[in-house]
């Protein structure tokens, strides 16, 4: 079915497709459980110490960020890189081996991660909970990906590296730097000669630790959930729609300005904390500036569809990607608003932040990764997509789910923020803390419904992908869309 001169090796893409589906199902299922636990707290105590909100939350966050999202990005990487660099892994046994090694080490890593987090082994810092021996394995996985990544660039036939590759490189570099610096720990058993060998203490204390953590934390979001996913949309939207990217200059401008600005914005997680004021202000100001590169990318994607908007009605995949761009714009406007100091005073510590994260990850990351996997599926399997109708239904079910999710979390967050600061006529606090918890019950229940809808949609997606790979009609040539482009 291959039309171009080189036959590409998609085996590793397929593996990562499988892990993306598995971690998607598991991660989202745990997410739904967490949501329902907040509405119905009895659900916390069904599995003894292994079922509480506190234990399960790291499984949800790590499972979605490093399981589902990274798998999706890497499935895309091993597909896109061969095609835009015009190299097949078939031609280079060493690179093919590194690619497979990358996958299997990653699979081992994720199994270890799930087990250790579940039993409560944790460094506590958000999104870097893994204990130090597993951190070392993360570094190994990253190095192996690096060899495979820069290796394929070293033997490329197409000299100019495409926009998607820029973003993959940025993901690689930024996560390497941030992950290492945020994980500098001193293993206690090595120093003291006693105690649990996996335990360690952070090299930084208190406020410093917080600064390093959110310099990492914000940019782990930036580079996994943003850069990696932008890499996907820059390839898959033009391919699926058959339209060239609207503006090279705009992509150049948004890429470099995003790279410059994003790293400064981490301070917005620490507004009104004990970090220096000037740093809080930097975090706030740069977050607002960040609207420009974010919208630059999103607008570049939307304008790529110029004159072709009818495709949204005809092709559910285009629908997913355009909705993803739209949610990206939405989320990258909401984030800067929350980073304004006076808004942050209200929003911080509330569910509004949770809502913001989820309109980004459900709408932007989730939709774009599913679209990428849908686009690749016929090309990886040589079979037609099993059901476009199912895809369409899934789109609407999930969209309704997301809307329920973020609207309920907005209301919950702003309600609680206002109740915390409300005073009576004498200036005393009007509500005890528990009043503000009880008030949130209906919104937590609605959010649970939203989560269930999204999960149902994801199960439909998984079924559709499974059927495509196993029993759909065989294709005799690679599908090409409306306005065919080269490559």
């Amino acid at each position: 079915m291959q039309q171009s001169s080189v036959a590409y090796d998609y085996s590793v893409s397929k593996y990562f497709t499988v892990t993306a589906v598995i971690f998607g199902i598991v991660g989202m299922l745990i997410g739904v459980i967490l949501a329902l636990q907040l509405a119905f707290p009895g659900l916390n105590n069904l599995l003894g110490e292994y079922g509480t909100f506190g234990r399960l939350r790291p499984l949800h966050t790590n499972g979605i960020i490093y399981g589902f999202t990274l798998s999706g990005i890497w499935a895309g990487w091993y597909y896109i890189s061969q095609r835009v660099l015009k190299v097949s892994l078939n031609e280079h046994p060493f690179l093919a081996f590194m690619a497979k090694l990358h996958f299997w080490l990653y699979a081992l890593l994720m199994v270890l991660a799930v087990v250790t987090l579940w039993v409560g082994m944790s460094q506590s810092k958000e999104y870097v909970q893994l204990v130090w021996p597993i951190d070392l394995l993360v570094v190994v996985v990253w190095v192996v990906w690096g060899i495979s990544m820069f290796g394929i660039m070293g033997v490329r036939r197409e000299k100019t590296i495409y926009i998607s590759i820029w973003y993959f490189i940025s993901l690689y570099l930024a996560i390497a730097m941030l992950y290492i610096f945020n994980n500098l720990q001193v293993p206690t058993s090595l120093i003291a000669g006693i105690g649990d060998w996996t335990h360690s203490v952070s090299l930084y204390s208190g406020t410093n630790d917080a600064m390093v953590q959110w310099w990492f934390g914000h940019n782990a979001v930036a580079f996994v959930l943003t850069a990696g996913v932008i890499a996907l949309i820059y390839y898959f939207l033009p391919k699926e729609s058959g339209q060239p990217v609207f503006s090279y200059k705009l992509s150049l401008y948004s890429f470099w300005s995003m790279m410059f600005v994003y790293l400064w914005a981490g301070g917005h997680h620490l507004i009104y904390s004990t970090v220096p004021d000037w740093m809080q202000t930097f975090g706030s100001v740069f977050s607002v500036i960040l609207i420009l590169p974010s919208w630059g990318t999103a607008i570049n994607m939307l304008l790529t569809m110029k004159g072709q908007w009818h495709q949204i009605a005809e092709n559910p995949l285009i629908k997913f990607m355009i909705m993803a761009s739209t949610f990206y714009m939405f989320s990258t406007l909401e984030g800067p608003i929350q980073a304004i100091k006076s808004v942050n005073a209200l929003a911080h510590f509330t569910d509004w932040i949770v809502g913001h994260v989820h309109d980004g990850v459900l709408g932007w990351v989730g939709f774009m990764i599913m679209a990428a996997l849908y686009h690749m599926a016929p090309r990886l399997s040589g079979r037609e997509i099993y059901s476009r109708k199912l895809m369409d239904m899934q789109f609407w079910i999930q969209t309704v789910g997301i809307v329920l999710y973020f609207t309920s979390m907005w209301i919950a967050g702003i309600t609680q923020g206002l109740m915390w600061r409300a005073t009576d006529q004498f200036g005393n606090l009007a509500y005890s803390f528990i009043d503000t918890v009880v008030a949130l019950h209906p919104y937590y229940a609605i959010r649970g419904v939203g989560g269930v809808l999204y999960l149902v949609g994801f199960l439909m997606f998984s079924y559709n992908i499974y059927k495509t790979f196993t029993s759909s009609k065989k294709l005799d040539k690679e599908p090409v869309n409306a306005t065919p482009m080269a490559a």
Partner: protein
Amino acid sequence: MFHWMEKNPFFFTVFLFVVIAYAGLVEILPNFADQSRPVVGKTPYTVLQLAGKEVYVKENCMSCHSQMVRPFKNETDRYGMYSLSGEYAYDRPFLWGSKRTGPDLHRVGNYRSTDWHENHMKEPATIVPGSIMPKYPWLFTNNADLETAYAEAVTVKKVFSTPYTEAMLTINDENPQAGFDATKMTILDEAKLIAADMKDPGVKAAVAAGNVPEIVALIAYLNSLK
């Protein structure tokens, strides 16, 4: 220049790294030394409190509780004095949290007592009607990992010069086990004081027998948050 870099991924990568890296240098480094200086009178966590902090981390309490009182009137009215950087000097890792599903805990030692925590951990909703916090019955039967807490204290004293006195911590470089055994007497004395304010017979028996259930360590830690 950009066109040239797009044909030379090596230089592209180097330039990109510089663009990405220096925000961190400018933002994080300048105040690094200042930020970690303890406030006057701040003492390090005892080994028992460290064991409690490890329980706090293990159960991921910070996914729902912050430890950061912001400088607003409604927060100082609710929780007490706003937080200062130097109060966190011995916190490795920091445990500020980013979500308040439950209330802030940075000064919880000022207004909650040992027996309040005991009852609350067993059955939160009976103490605070409407509470959505899970029950934590296993904290009453699992023993705290004192050896690891001891190792943590030794590590921060040796590596970061955290000012532990001889009375708080005995270090024996030749025989770590002996150092731990000597320190354990101090830990148990502190645990007995906590257990004396508790009602659970199992916990009392365990402490009398020389074990420290997780709940005792956790309460010691929570009581130290002032």
